[in-house]
């Protein structure tokens, strides 16, 4: 009974979050200041957090050192310099992905909502990091090949469209989860929604794509810097190392969320079956719709 009340309260919180993120439920004049206020409060939490401040300072130092070493690499042929750059890029990727963003909430919501094996969870997290770096690489390389320069304004417009596409994907994944849940609840065959064959929207690759389709700006600047100095394969190597670092962070966090969920909701106890098969998918679906809506609203 207490668990049901707790679950209902959590659901109510997410529905409230969805309502705030959806401007149609409020007038434009009311919605934007309210979202801006919440954004300010969330931003204040992040900014006034000692760990995140230290992460920012660490990233600033790594950014400066990597730029200096890339220029030194152009001057000399010291192989150890390249090794040190690869290691620094790897660390930069880990630190960068630990901070806010990079789809951790999306992956967490999906893990909560779905009953997936650990290897699938790791696959999604790794693929998200890889596509996040790959999309930036393709855009930077593609614009340079086609236009002969790094067309920043056009690239940013493309990035904006990709962010909109990602937000729509996230909303679609959330809605698909909720619809499957409702369909399973009202259909005569009361099957376990979490164990049915996944629809298109709930496939691991789609979840990873919704995160990775947005190009990573840090990958872009590192690659552009290297390409400007004529260090093509070295730039790609650094991007690969950076992506590997991001993958480590995302996989670690995905594993943590998956482990917590497995421990909190042991399958052997009948009382948790309802939580696993209905409450958690509902929470995850609503949260995905809320966060996708908030992202879309901030972009439009």
């Amino acid at each position: 009974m207490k668990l049901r009340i707790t679950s209902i309260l959590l659901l109510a919180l997410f529905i409230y979050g969805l309502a705030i993120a959806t401007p149609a439920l409020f007038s434009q004049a009311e919605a934007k200041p309210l979202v801006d206020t919440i954004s300010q409060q969330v931003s204040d939490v992040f900014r006034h957090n000692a760990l995140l401040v230290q992460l920012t300072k660490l990233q600033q130092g790594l950014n400066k050192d990597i730029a200096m070493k890339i220029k030194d690499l152009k001057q000399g042929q010291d192989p150890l310099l390249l090794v040190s750059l690869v290691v620094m890029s790897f660390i930069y990727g880990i630190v960068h992905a630990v901070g806010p963003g990079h789809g951790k909430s999306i992956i967490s919501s999906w893990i909560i909502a779905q009953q997936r094996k650990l290897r699938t969870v790791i696959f999604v997290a790794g693929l998200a990091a890889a596509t996040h770096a790959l999309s930036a690489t393709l855009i930077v390389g593609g614009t340079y090949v086609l236009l002969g320069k790094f067309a920043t304004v056009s690239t940013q417009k493309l990035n904006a469209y990709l962010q909109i596409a990602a937000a729509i994907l996230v909303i679609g994944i959330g809605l698909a989860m909720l619809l499957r849940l409702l369909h399973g609840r009202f259909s005569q065959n009361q099957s376990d929604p979490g164990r049915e064959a996944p629809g298109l929207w709930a496939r691991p690759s789609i979840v990873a794509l919704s995160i990775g389709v947005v190009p990573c700006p840090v990958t872009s600047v590192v690659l552009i810097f290297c390409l400007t100095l004529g260090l093509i394969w070295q730039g790609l190597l650094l991007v690969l190392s950076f992506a590997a670092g991001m993958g480590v962070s995302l996989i670690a966090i995905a594993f943590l969320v998956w482990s917590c969920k497995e421990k909190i909701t042991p399958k052997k106890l009948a009382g948790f079956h309802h939580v696993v098969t209905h409450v958690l998918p509902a929470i995850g679906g609503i949260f995905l719709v809320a966060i996708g809506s908030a992202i879309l609203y901030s972009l439009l």
Partner: protein
Amino acid sequence: MRKLMLCLFVSISLLSGSNTCLAHPHIFITPRAHFAFSDTIFTFFSVRWYFDEMSTIEFIGPEAMNATLSLSASQQKEILTLEGFPRPAQLANYFRVEIDGSAVAAFAPAAVSLTVDEGRLVYSFTIGIYRPVKKVVKIWFNDRSNFIAYETRSGFFTTSQLKGPAPPLTILSEQYVDRITITR
């Protein structure tokens, strides 16, 4: 216990998110500034933001590598329209001014200029304040979206006084934010 853990890790999941994709810094700026006083009046401060080298190359192009350049009006206009780049009309969102504990609504600058100095993009502007100061002025730079991170270093800021000695300046960290503190 399990219910508590459930609420806890859902909360952690919430806090690990952001309503934008730009919640972590991608541009790093080292600000330098001069603060001018006339007796008890804080008259104006002029700012130069030095962007990191990699962002400079992204915005300007290969010609900016290790170079000192003037940018044409059209180049400056193009850069100022880029996503995440502080626009002149929104500059007041990127810094805070407090005089004797009260926030000041700073005026927007009349104009900004962009140049390249030794391979780094420099964004310059001047803000007029014209307010009396009894004891202390605090100024700090920040970006609410966290797309830009500022590295506030002592030694990069100066003060001047039209009448009398220049007021002393220190960098104090309050709530993990480095604030430029000028005392009379």
